[in-house]
C-alpha cells in the first residue's frame, strides 16, 4: 500500500496520525479514500467541484502532481505521497 503523509495542520482530522497506508491506483483514488475515512478533511482538501483545492499541493515522491499526470498520477506499493499546504498571504 502507498504511504500518505499528512501535514501538521490537517492531523487533527486524522486522529493525530501523520502517516497512513492507502490502497489505490492513482492520486484521485488516494484522496477519495482519505476523505471517505476522514470526512472532516474534505473541506480542507477539495473545492466545491470535488477537485483538489488550489491551496493544496500533492507531491508523489519529490514531484508535484501538477508536473506529472495530475490526479491521474499512478500510485505504486512503495509510493510516498505528501500533502503540502500552500502557505501564502499578504496585506492586500
Amino acid at each position, binding site marked *: 500500500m502507498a504511504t500518505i*503523509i499528512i*501535514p*501538521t*495542520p*490537517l*492531523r*487533527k*482530522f486524522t486522529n493525530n496520525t501523520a502517516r497512513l497506508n492507502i490502497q489505490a491506483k492513482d492520486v484521485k483514488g488516494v484522496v477519495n479514500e482519505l476523505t471517505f475515512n476522514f470526512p472532516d478533511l474534505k*473541506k*480542507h482538501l477539495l473545492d466545491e467541484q470535488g477537485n483538489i483545492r488550489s*491551496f493544496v*499541493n500533492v*507531491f508523489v515522491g519529490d514531484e*508535484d502532481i501538477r508536473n506529472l499526470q495530475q490526479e491521474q498520477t499512478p500510485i505504486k506499493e512503495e509510493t510516498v505521497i*505528501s500533502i*503540502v*499546504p*500552500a*502557505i*501564502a*498571504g*499578504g*496585506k*492586500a
Partner: protein
Amino acid sequence: MLIIEQKSLDEMYRDALQSFPDECCGFFFGKEIGEERTVTNILTVNNSKEGDKKRRFEIAPKDYLNAEKFADENELQLLGVYHSHPNHPAVPSEHDRIAAQPFFSYVIISVKERMIADIRSWQLNDNLQFEEESIEKQSINQNK
C-alpha cells in the same frame, strides 16, 4: 494563548525589519499543552512570491517540507507561520484568510517606517474565519 520566548520574538522582529519594505515569512515551532502554545524555535524562509513582495508572501513547498522535517527531527510541533505587514496593521487580509490552514497560529508583525509597530496572532475557527489569540512575550528570566 501563544507564549513566545524572547529569542524567538527577536528573530521574528529581526526578519521583519531586515525584509522591510518587503514582507518576510517563516515558521515557528514549540509545544502545545492544553490551550497554551509555547514558541521556542524559528525557521526563517525566503519569500518566494514572484512579483510584489511588498504586499504578498509565499513559501515554497520544499521549504514547507523542510519545516515538517525540522519539527520531526527536533521533537517539536510545527505551530504556525509568521509574516510581516509593512506599513500596514497586524490584521489578516482576505487573502491571508483564504490561504490559511486550520490548527496553525498565524503571527502578523506590523512594521511602520522600519520600526516594529505591533504583533498579533490569529487562528482559523471551524467556520474558516480568523479569531485573534492572545500573545504573551516571555523573557528568558521568566522561563527559568
